[in-house]
């Protein structure tokens, strides 16, 4: 299919502002009378606040107020409170905020607040709290119990409680030593097929333990926010990945009518899953501003961003994989203990889902439990569950394939999901899958056959490693609103409530509308980032879902406006709606193109005609946010607005496959990535540069997870070591390949009007898996069974030093 816009590069409108410094982030907004709020954070890993004496702080000149947990609606564990009081559950947890005329005064004032704490026992290793008699991170237990419904990924919803799950010492010991903990209790489990029977048919069976470490998001822009109130309305400058989908949530946190909130978020300096929905501390900014009746900027420092900015849940697990003599994966049995930190939760089930789709096992069982610890709260991080599973799974699958005498790529191709592939517990279908084709394409790009034949020893001290890995994430949803306005001057305003998290998906999805409208891109204006500009209710930006979901809502809004233009033309020139066409930004009679009008003229007519044409009427099924936006634009042009009701069935799989060639220095444990080649199975490529960005960035994240990034907690005092960037070690320019080679499969998903699927998470999953696979290949098949694999572990392994590598834990390193 040839497109006018889809698959073509364009310059998203915010890029120029980013290179000139004009792009504004939450901390860049100032307001007259603004005061600076800063938080006091907990020095203890577990306990309660007994008393707060802020008198000395409040007496300081320039200090304007204090905000504590008592100023917030009560919240009960396991909800992650904006400010802790009765349940302090990790070092760095915010306790209170103080506002002052300057940042410096606020800091000096914080130092004068005297907080008396009562300490409680604490725990940083999920297996320690899981052990009978082990300390619990909350007085009432160590795990989340769901009462009703499911919480959204990475969040804690109401209807949850803290309960307790314990294993016997024998069970924990068995698990620590890489064996199945017989008879252990789990928080969640699922199974399909006859696992025992399928294992019985397998000719190759491996059993392995694994661990992946926690990993802070450390978004470069911390979650600083600024809020002020004017005429009963709250104007809120925040930093979310998503935009309008968070509106009602934020209004709820401020306990106001959603109509009285204007949420402004033009740019977001990274979120990676940690800013999908409004987060607790936004409540402080808005409420404190209301309390003080002054604009408040709540600045979050780098250390605080570590504390409250979320982290990936580490997991510790056991897996049994069986291969049939056909090379098909017959059965998989997996157990995962997740580290849920002091809040949020693990994604063990998602991890298992990765196995289920990537290798299509005939039968599978998952058992998991998510344990709280007195470490920072955990939340979704780029492919939560799936990507860390991809990381540890790849070398294990390599081992199984090698044992079965199969080429690693051929093995993956045999098991790859096709269009009739199934996923997860319910073995639901897929909207599309071109995974075998993608494997072929990437293998060709990488030159697998030639590379795999190369000798492993490069020199006396250097060995080559060739790795392959796959990533997956469900990449699409449906049911959101599209909104377009055409002004009488012919300008096409493409409104979107998609957040600007740095992927340019907010712009990419509007290309679907431009495509449908067959209009010149120069006449289009993307309206986004500021709710005062009238935005529709759009999907959340997380889980790779925007491209699929929002090309659909863009498309339906475009269809709506086209239909309206045809009706307007019909009113002028007669005939039936089918008699009309669009082209060259005109709507005209197909039989006589001179009988028609420009989009601008149609917009002028729409204003005259009123009703649904100028937004005076709108569909009932659109969200309240969209309704308000339409109301605000009534009579200003031709309004196209619709909710996505297009058919959808099955999971939308975003997938990717990557190949890595490394040269590993056996004397230092350091490595260079010589070749990185990856192919995205993301349906139609909408924005090639944007896809390249996603794939490259995902690659860097993958390398980070495989070899660099970490969570380091001191188990004896509950202290985090990696509050700063350099200790958390996100990769730098010099830790990634000099060039990266990525492409899209570019075959359409039938359920998106332009064929697009998302790719954000799989881009990381394939890279981390491929690099882990390459390590094992370079080291003669040695499995580290963990992420990250750092230079010290490689040196220890080669030196046959048993230290460091044996003791697997999720928060210590």
């Amino acid at each position: 299919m040839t497109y006018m816009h889809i698959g073509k590069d364009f310059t998203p409108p915010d890029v120029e502002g980013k290179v000139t410094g004009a792009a504004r982030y939450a901390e860049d907004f100032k307001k007259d009378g603004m005061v600076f709020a800063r938080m006091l954070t907990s020095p203890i890993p577990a306990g309660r606040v007994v008393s707060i004496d802020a008198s000395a702080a409040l007496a300081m000149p320039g200090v304007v107020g204090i905000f504590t947990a008592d100023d917030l609606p009560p919240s009960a564990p396991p909800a992650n409170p904006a400010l802790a009081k009765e349940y302090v559950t990790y070092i760095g947890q915010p306790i209170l905020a103080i506002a002052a005329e300057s940042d410096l005064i606020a800091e000096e004032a914080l130092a004068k607040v005297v907080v008396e704490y009562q300490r409680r026992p604490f725990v940083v290793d999920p297996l320690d709290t899981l052990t009978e008699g082990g300390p619990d991170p909350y007085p009432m237990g160590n795990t989340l119990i769901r009462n009703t419904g499911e919480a959204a990924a990475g969040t804690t919803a109401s209807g949850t409680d803290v309960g307790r799950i314990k294993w016997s010492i024998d069970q924990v010991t068995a698990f620590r030593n890489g064996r199945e903990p017989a008879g252990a209790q789990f928080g969640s489990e699922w199974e399909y097929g006859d696992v025992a029977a399928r294992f019985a048919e397998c000719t190759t069976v491996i059993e392995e333990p694994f661990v992946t470490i926690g990993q802070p998001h450390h978004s470069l822009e911390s979650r600083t926010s600024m809020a002020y109130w004017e005429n009963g309305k709250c104007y809120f400058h925040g930093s979310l990945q998503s935009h309008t989908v968070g509106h009602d949530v934020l209004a709820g946190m401020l306990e106001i009518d959603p109509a009285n909130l204007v949420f402004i978020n033009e740019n977001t300096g990274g979120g990676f899953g940690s800013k999908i929905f409004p987060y607790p501390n936004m409540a402080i900014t808005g409420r404190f501003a209301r309390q003080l009746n002054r604009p408040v900027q709540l600045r979050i420092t780098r250390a605080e961003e570590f504390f409250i900015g979320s982290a990936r849940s580490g997991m510790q697990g056991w897996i049994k994989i069986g291969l049939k003599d056909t090379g098909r994966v017959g059965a998989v049995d997996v157990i995962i203990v997740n580290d849920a930190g002091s809040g949020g939760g693990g994604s063990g089930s998602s991890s298992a889902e990765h196995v289920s789709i990537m290798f299509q096992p005939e039968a599978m069982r998952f058992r998991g439990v998510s344990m709280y610890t007195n470490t920072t709260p955990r939340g979704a991080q780029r492919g939560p569950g799936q990507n860390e599973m991809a990381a540890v799974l790849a070398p294990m699958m390599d081992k199984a394939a090698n044992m079965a005498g199969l080429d690693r790529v051929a093995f993956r191709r045999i098991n790859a999901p096709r269009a009739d592939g199934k996923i997860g517990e319910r073995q639901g279908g897929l909207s599309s899958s071109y995974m075998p084709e993608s494997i072929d394409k990437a293998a060709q790009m990488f030159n697998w056959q030639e590379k795999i034949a190369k000798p492993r020893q490069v020199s006396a001290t250097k060995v080559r490693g060739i790795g392959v890995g796959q990533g997956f994430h469900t990449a699409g949803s449906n049911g959101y609103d599209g909104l377009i306005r055409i002004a009488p001057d012919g300008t096409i305003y493409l409104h979107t409530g998609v957040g600007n998290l740095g992927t340019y998906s907010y712009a990419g999805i509007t290309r679907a509308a431009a495509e449908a409208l067959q209009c010149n891109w120069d006449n289009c204006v993307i309206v986004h980032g500021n709710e005062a500009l009238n935005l529709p209710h759009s999907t959340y930006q997380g889980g790779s879902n925007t491209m699929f979901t929002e090309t659909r809502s863009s498309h339906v809004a475009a269809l709506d406006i086209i239909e309206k233009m045809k009706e307007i033309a019909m009113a002028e020139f007669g005939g039936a709606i089918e008699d009309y066409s669009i082209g060259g930004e005109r709507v005209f009679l197909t039989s006589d193109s001179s009988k028609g009008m420009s989009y601008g003229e149609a917009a002028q007519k729409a204003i005259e005609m009123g009703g649904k044409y100028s937004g005076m009427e709108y569909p009932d099924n659109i969200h309240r946010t969209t309704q308000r936006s339409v109301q605000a634009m009534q009579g200003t042009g031709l309004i196209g607005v619709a909710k996505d009701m297009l058919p959808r069935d099955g999971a939308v799989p975003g997938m990717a496959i990557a190949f890595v060639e490394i040269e590993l220095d056996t004397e230092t444990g350091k490595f260079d990535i010589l070749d990185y080649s990856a192919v995205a199975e993301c349906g139609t490529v909408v924005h090639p540069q944007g896809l390249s960005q996603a794939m490259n960035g995902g690659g860097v994240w993958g390398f980070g997870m495989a070899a660099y990034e970490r969570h380091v907690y001191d188990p004896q005092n509950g202290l985090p070591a990696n509050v700063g960037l350099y200790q958390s070690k996100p990769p730098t320019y010099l830790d990634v390949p000099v060039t990266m080679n990525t492409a899209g499969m570019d075959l359409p998903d039938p359920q998106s009007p332009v064929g697009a699927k998302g790719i954000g998470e799989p881009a990381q999953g394939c890279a981390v898996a491929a690099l882990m696979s390459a390590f094992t290949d370079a080291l003669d098949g040695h499995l580290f069974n963990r992420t990250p694999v750092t230079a010290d572990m490689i040196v220890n392994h080669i030196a046959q030093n048993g230290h460091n590598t044996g003791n697997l834990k999720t928060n210590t390193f």
Partner: protein
Amino acid sequence: MNQKLTRRRFIKGVIASGVAATTTSLWYSATGADRPAGAVERLLSINVNGQVRRVDVAPQETLAHTLRYKLGLTGTKLGCNRGECGACTVVADDVNIYACSTLTHEVKDKAVVTVEGLRAADGTLHPVQAAFVAELSPACGFCTAGQVMSAFALLKSNPRPTREEARQAMSGNLCRCGAYDHYLNGVMRASGQLS
């Protein structure tokens, strides 16, 4: 309590007790009652983006703070405020530095250029900026100003860097989104080596 201070006072104390006349020196440094003359004045003229600006700057104030909060130049971002990420990179006398880890008083005799100062008077983007747009170098954009400034400084000293040289020169700028490849493409394009 600063332990070194205590120790020092002890030593001084021993001396003082021997020589009673100098006993007062015991408290001299600790109380700071008598500060040496010559501490810097707050009012400062600094040259930012070719303009000399007169600003009230606290002695301990960082350049990033002055730029963002006194001069309204919010293009310079604070990512870590510890000199670990590079989002605050500016150029002083053609050298890229971390504005969060520089006192404003330290650059009083230097010409400071921020991301806002690169555009030509007619609004034309600087070649680095134009190249970064063409290559879609920024992702979330929070580190971009710093990346632009490091690339700007690099091309001043090395107008046609190799990709490897560019990578080394840019290595003090973290990009959490991982857009390194796109930034390097931007640098290569800006130096006329990619079209």
